[in-house]
């Protein structure tokens, strides 16, 4: 695939994101990662920022806005928020921010657990193409991609994260 886009190193972006977040962490903070890429990133961020920070994961399958069109996702995983959301400063974590629909679903789901004090969004990559008024507060890198390009985060056997770009039919 001829590609003039430079794909950043996910591990480097992680470090950068962690450094952006470090000054923002308080005793009231909690990290919530969105399945599955966001969950890996959140896990790694916690390792970098301190094991005492509560970590949760969200599977947004039940909150998506396209259920009527495409039905239930074939692999739904349970969400796991074992801390009290009430009054928390939540840092919502995802791998790639695109249309913004995933974030909207995640926020809707989070509010069904309780009323947080604040939610801020941290993403490895913001690729533009927003369809909703959603913005990230902490971004590893900005990339301009087209609709037929798919940016994906993968986790290797050794736990290393990497980004790859695929051309899709559109």
């Amino acid at each position, binding site marked *: 695939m001829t590609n003039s886009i430079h794909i950043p190193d996910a591990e480097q972006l992680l470090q950068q994101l962690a450094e952006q977040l470090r000054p923002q962490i308080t005793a009231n903070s909690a990290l919530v990662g969105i399945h599955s890429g966001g969950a890996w990133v959140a896990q790694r961020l916690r390792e970098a920022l301190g094991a005492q920070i509560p970590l949760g994961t969200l599977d947004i399958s039940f*909150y998506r806005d396209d259920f009527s069109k495409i*039905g*239930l996702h074939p*692999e739904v*995983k349970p*969400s796991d928020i074992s801390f009290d959301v009430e009054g928390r400063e939540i840092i919502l974590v995802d791998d790639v921010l695109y249309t913004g629909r995933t974030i909207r679903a995640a926020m809707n789901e989070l509010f*069904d657990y309780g009323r947080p004090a604040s939610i801020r969004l941290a993403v490895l990559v913001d690729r533009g193409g927003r369809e909703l008024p959603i913005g990230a507060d902490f971004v590893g890198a900005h990339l301009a991609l087209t609709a037929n390009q798919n940016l994906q985060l993968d986790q290797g056997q050794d736990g290393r994260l990497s980004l790859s770009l695929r051309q899709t039919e559109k």
Partner: protein
Amino acid sequence: MLTNPQLNQHGELQHLLTIEGLSAGIIRHILDTADSFVPVAERDIKKVPLLRGKAIFNLFFEPSTRTRTTFEIAAKRLSADVINLSIGASSQSKGETVLDTVNNLAAMQADMFIVRHSQSGAAHLIARHVAPHIHVVNAGDGRHAHPTQGLLDMYTIRHYKRDFHELRVAIVGDVMHSRVARSQIHALTTLGVPEVRVVGPKTLLPTGVGKMGVHVYHDMARGLKDVDVVIMLRLQNERMKGALLPSAQEYFKYYGLTPDKLAYAKPDAIVMHPGPMNRGVEIDSSVADGGQSVILPQVTFGIAVRMAVMSILAGK
């Protein structure tokens, strides 16, 4: 009439009518999806917006408060609109057939029918005649099938025992008249349980039940020996009147689950019952309320499993 009406032309689940004919893959998919619904019950907001705007009709031609309530709770936790219809003997005696009732309701923008009926095959009949966008869930048809019960029983077994491939499971009681037993037998054999047993007097075991892939026992000591799961079936009062059994007392003595009979099973065996229980007839209270009983968790799991079934169907 020989094409499986549950599946659409892509092999996807269009209705849930019976476990018979479902692949192990589809069954596991339903159980895995149910995993994600269990935590919803533990939150403050016990709802997800998945089926918002969908209308689910509980069509109960045979009364049942328990099952209907579970389906209602499950549907409401999916944010669906639920309409309960108990079609009593009165409307049936006015000459309105099952299909008449269904046709009238379909005109009311129904998306899904949950159907319970006293006749085997009623859910199949309805599924054959509804518009293509309407899904049918069988909540029990005569003696034939109760697939959501079978699925929640599998969910329960998987929760406590993990691997189906090593288990011995005994189903005890009135298998002849039990739609739950038939669904359980199909599910267990499909999921690869190596030894499925039915235990009961000859009058309560149907002809050729062995051909469904089970071992037949008439004796609790042998039937329960070394099993990992004991499933007790309810014994209806009518069985005493039909010359099938002499009395509840004799039945309890020989086939009721008491602590000493449970002792034939493995020490960590779990005790299940689809409910409602007849204490002192098929099961002793001390066992029903004892440490090996998982009867109450079955109910919780039942809501999650029904949420999974409705979600999977509604998305097609």
